[in-house]
């Protein structure tokens, strides 16, 4: 994927106000990886030099790659799994046409739980 360029790195932008999101971010950091994956609070995106707006990052789980690719929602989950040594086979399976609808449902469920545990946002 990174042809001769610098090695690929992924950044996960998680909502620091959401307990489940923080927990998942911590879990991601402990997992053995094929590709470096950093978890950063979406609230710190502007300081970290990420051009995406906070509204967008809070609305959908977002992963950015060092080659400029941006992944949202289910795609972001699948890219995270792809980066992990123990779960890459699952990312390949779940992204295949046959299981993709189930992946959507599964990740929608997790996102639903995350939204439910998050304190009410002042705006929106």
């Amino acid at each position: 994927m990174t042809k001769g360029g610098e090695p690929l790195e992924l950044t996960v932008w998680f909502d620091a106000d959401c307990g489940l999101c923080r927990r998942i971010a911590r879990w991601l950091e402990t997992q053995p990886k094929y590709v470096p994956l950093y978890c950063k609070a979406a609230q710190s995106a502007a300081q970290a030099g990420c051009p995406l707006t906070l509204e967008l990052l809070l609305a959908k789980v977002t992963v950015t790659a060092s080659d400029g690719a941006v992944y949202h929602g289910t795609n972001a989950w699948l890219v995270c799994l792809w980066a992990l040594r123990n779960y890459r086979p699952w990312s390949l399976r779940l992204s295949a046409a046959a299981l993709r609808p189930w992946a959507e449902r599964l990740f929608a469920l997790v996102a639903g739980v995350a939204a439910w545990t998050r304190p009410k946002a002042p705006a929106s």
Partner: protein
Amino acid sequence: MDPMLTTYFAYVILSVGLTIWVGRTLHKNGRAFLVDVFAGRGDLADSVNHLLVVGFYLINFGYVSLALKLAVPVTNATGGVEALSYKVGLVLVVLGGMHFFNLYVFSRIRRSKTIAEAPRPVAPDALLPGSGTGR
């Protein structure tokens, strides 16, 4: 010669011959797999191939040796052939099991390599304005 001793001799010759045949087949045909797994490094592939075959021989000769003793005494030629076919049949089944286990190990090694090299499974939803700023 004592029919029991004849049966033992025939058993050892047949079992050792079969084991060497299967071992050589594995050694010859497993190499291509291993060269692919070790990214074209023939020396490493040969080394792993050799080690696998040594393990294969040890297990099989060990089994052949352990299974040598006949439980029922053999008194005539018919009894000898029956005992021999039973013992050699067991050796063949064990060899078959070992062979498939070896194939499984090869395919397993190969699969883990293809997974480690798999590209990202999904296409990006968007691109950052100035590419390379993600980190």
